[in-house]
C-alpha cells in the first residue's frame, strides 16, 4: 500500500503528463518528416531532460520513441517515403491504398494497429521485465560478463548488412569507450594529455554527432530531390474492417514483442515478419501489395509491438536492445540511475511509475495520431532547407549544454564526420554505439570477476547460468558465420549468373 502511494505520487505529476504528450507529439512530427529519424529526435531531446525529474525525462524520450514509430508510417503511406526504416513495410500496401484514394483508411489502420500493438507490448514489458530482473538478481560479475558478450555478438550477428563491418563498428565503439582515466588504476588511456578527455568521451556529443550531423552533411552534399506534396484523403477505417484485421494485429504485436525482447533484432525485421505472416494466413492474400488494409495493419503491429519489448532487456538487465534504448540508458545514467536488477530492488516505485507512464503513452498516441492524420501530414511539406538549419542549431546547443564547453561541439562535429564516413562506407552506426555503451561494462565485469577469483579463470565457467550464456554466445557467433558464408555464396551465385547472362 505504501509502495502504491509512492508510485502514484511519482506518476501523478503534471510534468509527467506534459512530458508524455510532448514526447509523442515530437515523435510523430519528426517521424512524419522523411530524413529526420526518431533516433535523431531522442538524441536531440536528451539535453533538454537534464533539469527534469527522472520519470518525466524518461517518459519524454519514450514518448518520442513511440510517436516516431507511428509517425514514420504517415509519409510511407502518403508519399511512398518511409519516415523510418521500420515503416518501409507499411508502404507496400499503404501507398497503393493512398493511390486508390484510401489514404485516410490506411492511416487509420496504421494508427489503430500501432496503438493496439503498443498496448500489448507494454503489458509484456510490465510482466516480463520484473520476472527477468528477479532471475538476474542471481547474476554475479562472471554472468554479466557473458551476458554482455552475448549481447555484443547477437547485435552484430543480427545487424543488417555486412557482419564484418558490424564487428568493426562495435570494436571501434569499445575502443573509444576506453578513452579516459582507467577506473581501477587511474592511469590515462589515449587522452593525449587533454584534460577534456580524462572523464571519458561525452555520450551526448557522440550521440548527436553520430545520428544527426551525418544527415545534415548529406543533405548539403547531395543533389536536391524534388519535393512531393502529401495529402490524406478518402474515408476512415470501419469497425468491421478493424475486426477483420484484429487477428493479424494481435499476431503481429506478439511477433513484435518476441523480436523486440531480443537485443539487436529491431522493428524492421518484426514489421516484415508480421506482414508475411499476415499474408500467408489471410483469405485476401492476393490483394497484399496492391492496397490491402490488413497488410498495413500487420506491418504497423509488428513495427510498434517492438517498442515496449525493447525496454525489457534494458530495464531488467541494463542491456540496450537497440540504438534508441541505448540513448534511453544514457538518460538513466544522466539522472544517476543504472537500469538492471538492482534498480528493481532500490527504485521499484520509480519503475512502476514509469510503467504507468508508458501505458498512458499508448492512449496519448491514439489522440495525437488522430490529429496527426489531419494536420501532421502537412509537416512533411515543410522544406528540409528550412528544417535542417534548425536541427543543426539544436545539435550545437545540445552538445554545448552537456559541460558548457566548446570542446563538446568539436567532439560532436568529429563524430558527425565519423558518422558520415560510416554512411559512405556502409559501416553501421548502431553496433558502434552499443559497443561504446557495453565496452566499459564488459571490462568492469571482467576485472571484477578476476578480482573475486584472485585471477582464477575458472570463475567464468562457474555454473549453469554462465554455461547457458557461453552456449548462446557461441551459438550467435556460429549463426553470424553461417550468415556470412550464406550471403557470400548468394552474392557469388548472383554475380556468376550476371556474368553468364
Amino acid at each position, binding site marked *: 500500500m505504501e509502495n502504491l502511494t509512492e508510485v502514484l505520487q511519482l506518476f501523478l505529476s503534471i510534468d509527467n503528463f506534459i512530458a508524455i504528450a510532448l514526447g509523442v507529439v515530437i515523435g510523430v512530427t519528426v517521424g512524419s518528416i522523411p530524413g529526420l529519424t526518431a533516433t535523431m529526435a531522442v538524441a536531440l531531446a536528451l*539535453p*533538454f531532460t*537534464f*533539469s*527534469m525529474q527522472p520519470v518525466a525525462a524518461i517518459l519524454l524520450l519514450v514518448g518520442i520513441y513511440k510517436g516516431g514509430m507511428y509517425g514514420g508510417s504517415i509519409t510511407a503511406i502518403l508519399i511512398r517515403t518511409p519516415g523510418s526504416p521500420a515503416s518501409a513495410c507499411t508502404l507496400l500496401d499503404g501507398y497503393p491504398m493512398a493511390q486508390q484514394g484510401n489514404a485516410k483508411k490506411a492511416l487509420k489502420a496504421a494508427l489503430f494497429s500501432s496503438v493496439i500493438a503498443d498496448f500489448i507490448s507494454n503489458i509484456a514489458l510490465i510482466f516480463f521485465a520484473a520476472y527477468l530482473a528477479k532471475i538476474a538478481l542471481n547474476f554475479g560479475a562472471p554472468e554479466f560478463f557473458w551476458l554482455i558478450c552475448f549481447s555484443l555478438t547477437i547485435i552484430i550477428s543480427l545487424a543488417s548488412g*555486412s557482419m*564484418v*563491418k558490424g564487428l*568493426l563498428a562495435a*570494436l571501434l565503439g569499445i*575502443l573509444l569507450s*576506453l578513452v579516459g582515466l*582507467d577506473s*581501477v*588504476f587511474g*592511469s*590515462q*588511456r*589515449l587522452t*593525449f594529455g587533454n584534460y577534456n578527455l580524462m572523464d571519458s568521451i561525452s555520450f551526448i556529443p557522440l550521440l548527436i554527432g553520430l545520428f544527426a550531423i551525418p544527415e*545534415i*552533411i*548529406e543533405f*548539403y*552534399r*547531395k*543533389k*536536391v530531390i524534388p519535393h512531393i506534396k502529401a495529402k490524406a484523403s478518402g474515408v476512415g477505417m470501419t469497425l468491421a474492417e478493424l475486426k477483420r484485421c484484429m487477428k493479424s494485429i494481435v499476431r503481429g504485436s506478439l511477433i513484435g514483442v518476441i523480436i523486440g525482447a531480443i537485443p539487436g533484432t529491431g522493428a524492421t525485421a518484426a514489421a516484415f515478419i508480421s506482414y508475411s505472416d499476415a499474408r500467408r494466413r489471410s483469405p485476401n492474400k492476393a490483394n497484399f501489395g496492391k492496397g490491402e488494409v490488413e497488410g498495413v495493419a500487420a506491418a504497423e503491429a509488428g513495427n510498434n509491438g517492438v517498442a515496449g519489448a525493447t525496454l525489457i532487456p534494458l530495464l531488467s538487465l541494463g542491456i540496450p536492445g537497440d540504438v534508441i534504448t541505448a540513448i534511453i540508458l544514457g538518460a538513466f545514467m544522466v539522472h544517476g540511475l543504472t537500469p538492471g536488477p538492482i534498480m528493481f530492488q532500490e527504485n521499484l516505485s520509480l519503475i512502476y511509475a514509469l510503467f504507468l507512464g508508458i501505458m498512458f503513452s499508448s492512449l496519448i498516441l491514439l489522440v495525437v495520431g488522430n490529429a496527426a492524420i489531419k494536420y501532421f501530414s502537412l509537416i512533411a511539406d515543410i522544406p528540409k*532547407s*528550412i528544417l*535542417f*538549419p*534548425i536541427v*543543426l*542549431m*539544436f545539435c*550545437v*546547443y545540445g552538445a*554545448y*549544454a552537456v559541460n*558548457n564547453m*566548446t570542446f563538446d*561541439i*568539436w567532439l560532436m*562535429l568529429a563524430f558527425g564526420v565519423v558518422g558520415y564516413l560510416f*554512411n*559512405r*562506407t*556502409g559501416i553501421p552506426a548502431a553496433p558502434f554505439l552499443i559497443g561504446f555503451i557495453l565496452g566499459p561494462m*564488459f571490462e568492469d565485469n*571482467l*576485472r571484477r570477476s*578476476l*578480482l573475486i577469483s*584472485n*585471477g582464477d579463470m575458472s570463475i567464468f565457467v562457474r555454473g549453469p547460468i554462465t554455461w547457458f550464456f557461453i552456449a548462446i554466445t557461441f551459438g550467435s557467433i556460429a549463426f553470424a558465420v553461417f550468415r556470412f558464408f550464406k550471403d*557470400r555464396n548468394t*552474392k557469388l551465385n*548472383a*554475380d556468376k549468373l550476371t556474368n553468364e547472362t
Partner: protein
Amino acid sequence: MSSSDLSNVKRIKDTLDVITGIVLLVVSLVLALYLVPNYIGEPSILQNPMMSPRWLPNIVSWLILAFSILLIIQGIIVPSDTENDERKIVKGPYRRFVIMLIALFVYVLFFESLGAILTGILATVLLFLAHPVRVWWAYGFAIAFPVGVTLLFVNVMNVPLPLMPF
C-alpha cells in the same frame, strides 16, 4: 592505365570495402604498435595481465586488424550490390557544401565569444542561403528560432548557454 591494371581493378569486387579495410588496417597498426604502448600507462605490479589498463585496448586493436584484413578479402571476393548500394550519393554543387562547412565553423569558433543567439542567427542565415531558401519570410525563422530556443534552454530548462557577447 595499362590493360593489366584494368584487369586488377576488375578483379576487386568492391573497391570501397578494400579502401575502408586498408584505412582501418593502418589505424589498427598505429593503435597496436604505437598508441597503446605509449599513451596508456601501466602499473609496475599486476595481479593478472588481464587487469592491465592496456589489455582490452590491445585486444581490440588486434581484433580490428584481423577484421580489417577480412574486410579487404571480402572486398576482393564478394561483389557489392550496385543497384541498391545506399553508400552512393549523387553529389550537389560544391558551393552549398562549402557554405555548410562555414556555418559549422561559425558555431565552433564564435559560440562562446558571440553567444548562442548571434551565432545561431548567423549560421542559420548562412545555411538558408546555402540551399537557397527563396521565401523571404522564412528568414524570420532564422532570427526567431535561435532567440526562442536559447531562451528555452536558459530560462525554462535551466541549461546555461552563453547568451550575448556583452
